[in-house]
């Protein structure tokens, strides 16, 4: 099964940015060209800073271009839980920051005339399960206490009302095409002097007393500030002990009757679903999407990842007159310990390095919030919301449970790495199109057999913190169950905190031995893993 993001498929003209070749000296270097990095770059360029954006792959090609294009004040972490784990001031700050980010995006699309289908519309929040009614009541109460205009409603349009136990509505939320938006911003700032580089991987970063240094394959960047806008900080960072990686799934379908609801829905049942609609190439709605089925990255409860798509497709067919399934894709998100993202200086002693992570599945708005906050911090402008998002706030008693749970989970993943344990014992057990781990000559190897029967092998040991990667048969990737690093079949990094690729291996197929090349053996490979 091939996965493709609707946003990638419906972005006709994608600007190309060159890779970095040579050395640079700028005020601010931003690692990552998603909505967080580009929004930060926009604000800093507007403030007169010299800025360079360094993107390892393509601008908007990470989670931004694989999201669901919805802009909303509510958050999947729930405001009433933020109230429990933090306080009312924090909860209100998060709500107002999210509302401001939504307005910011609207302003940018109008000011820069970005053709990204931005349109306001309501958000509906409902359940068909009696035991979830109290969650909705608590969340409506929390949003009202935070000053947001949410109300209970008897009517959820387009959906069968019979099973709905309770529903709420909030007007003024929005949809847009996230990839077109980010590329529109990138084109604008590039024309105004911001330097954007694609296919430029940062493999080392260091904060010195009066400057910072970033190393890429073909050049060094000297700067006064670094923003790590890579969804989760690259390298090793304490935030990775609480920001747990999750994957969620989306199917996009066409309807027979062309009756696409102009609203965004959260069905808050035990198995949460989000239903949304979007446009392919105009403001006319022509695609319905159902999203949900979160699970921890690399820890799917179903061996066949297809299950997650099938379940969403069944849901769509049950509730709508589906003509065809057009796209399927999945995306990664990171949860924070207390439901609030970590945005700001990377640790208490840091003066020049900033991070933004823990966005839950609400990253388009939170990425924009991060861009606004980080740029204010860097230019020295006061911002009342900084305290709520402070990345150095650490673990409090309310989040200690999450901290313990996540780290016990990581320890459990390490404890699965026992000698002689792997998915298969022999290459013959790997069917075409399948990936399996094998132990060969005492090393864990990730082996993929392509449909033409050719083998692709690399070390199965994640280059971030050495957990054993798992095969993701929906996307043909190797996913690390500990901190969410993901790799292609050739071992190259897709996303996550890992910087170095999985080491490619050559296998003597007849004897099932590793062919030792000139490269170091796995345990002798020195991987630069900066502690950020």
């Amino acid at each position, binding site marked *: 099964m091939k996965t493709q993001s609707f946003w990638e498929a419906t972005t006709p003209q994608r600007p190309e940015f060159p890779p970095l070749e040579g050395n640079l000296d700028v005020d601010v270097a931003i690692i990552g060209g998603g909505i967080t990095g580009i929004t930060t770059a926009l604000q800093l360029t507007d403030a007169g800073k010299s800025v360079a954006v360094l993107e390892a792959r393509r601008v908007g090609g990470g989670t931004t271009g694989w999201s669901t294009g919805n802009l909303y004040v509510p958050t999947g972490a729930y405001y009433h839980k933020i109230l429990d784990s933090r306080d009312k001031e924090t909860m209100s700050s998060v709500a107002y920051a999210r509302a401001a980010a939504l307005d910011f995006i609207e302003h940018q699309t109008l000011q820069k005339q970005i053709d990204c289908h931005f349109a306001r519309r309501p958000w509906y929040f409902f359940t068909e399960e009696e035991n979830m009614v109290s969650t909705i009541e608590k969340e409506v109460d929390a949003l009202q206490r935070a000053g947001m205009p949410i109300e209970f409603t008897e009517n959820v349009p387009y959906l069968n009302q019979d099973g709905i136990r309770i529903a709420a509505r909030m007007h003024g939320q929005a949809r847009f095409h996230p990839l077109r938006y980010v590329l529109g911003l990138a084109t604008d700032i590039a024309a105004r002097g911001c330097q954007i580089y694609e296919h430029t991987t940062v493999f080392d970063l260091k904060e010195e007393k009066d400057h910072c240094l970033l190393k890429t394959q073909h050049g060094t960047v000297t700067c006064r500030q670094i923003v790590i806008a890579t969804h989760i900080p690259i390298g*090793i960072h304490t935030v990775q002990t609480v920001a747990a990686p999750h994957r969620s799934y989306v199917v996009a379908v066409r309807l027979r009757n062309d009756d696409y609801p102009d609203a965004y829905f959260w069905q808050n049942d035990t198995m949460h679903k989000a239903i949304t609609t979007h446009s392919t190439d105009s403001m006319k709605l022509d695609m319905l999407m159902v999203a949900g089925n979160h699970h921890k990255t690399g820890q799917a409860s179903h061996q066949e990842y297809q299950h997650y798509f099938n379940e969403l497709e069944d849901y769509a067919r049950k509730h709508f007159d589906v003509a065809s399934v057009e796209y399927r894709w999945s995306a990664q998100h990171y949860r924070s310990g207390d439901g609030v993202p970590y945005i700001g200086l990377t640790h208490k002693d840091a003066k020049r390095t900033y991070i933004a992570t823990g966005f839950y599945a609400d990253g388009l708005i939170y990425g924009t919030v991060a861009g606004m906050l980080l740029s204010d911090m860097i230019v020295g402008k006061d911002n009342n919301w900084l305290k709520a998002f402070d990345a150095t706030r650490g673990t409090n008693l309310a989040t200690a449970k999450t901290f313990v749970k996540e780290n016990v989970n990581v*320890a459990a993943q*390490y*404890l*699965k*790495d*026992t*000698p002689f344990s792997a998915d298969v014992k022999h290459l013959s057990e790997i069917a075409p199109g399948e990936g399996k781990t094998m132990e060969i000559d*005492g*090393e*864990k190897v990730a082996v993929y057999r392509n449909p033409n029967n050719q083998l692709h092998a690399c*070390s199965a*040991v994640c*280059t*971030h*913190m*050495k*957990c054993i990667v798992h095969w993701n048969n929906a996307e043909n990737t190797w996913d690390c169950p500990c901190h969410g690093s993901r790799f292609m079949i050739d071992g190259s990094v897709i996303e996550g905190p890992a910087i*170095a690729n999985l080491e490619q291996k050559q296998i003597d197929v007849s004897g099932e031995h590793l062919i030792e090349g000139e490269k*170091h*053996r*796995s*345990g*002798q*490979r*020195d*991987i*630069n*893993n900066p*502690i950020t």
Partner: protein
Amino acid sequence: MATLFIAIEFFALAALLGMYLLTFVLRGKETPKAIVFTHGPLAAVGIILLIVYILKGGPNPWDSLILFVLAALGGAYMLFRDLTGRPIPPLLAVGHGLLAVTGFVLLLVFAFGS
């Protein structure tokens, strides 16, 4: 003496796993993390039991404890290097093992020597 004997058992198990891990380090292979994360806690429990025994008073194996603590510091440093992608110097691994084995032998002499 029961505490001491239990400590010896924990150290013996830790030593067996440690020798197994050493074969990976000396061959330049990735260490199996399940063994790493069992070896360390076993040794740590051994050290705690030894401290409990010493705190009870009377003749005690201070020399073993010092060697075990030094070995544990080396082990923690090796774990840090391993998990952060830095190779483990074979000499460091061997030295860590020698410290622990020496401490273990002295502990056996203390427990059974007289």
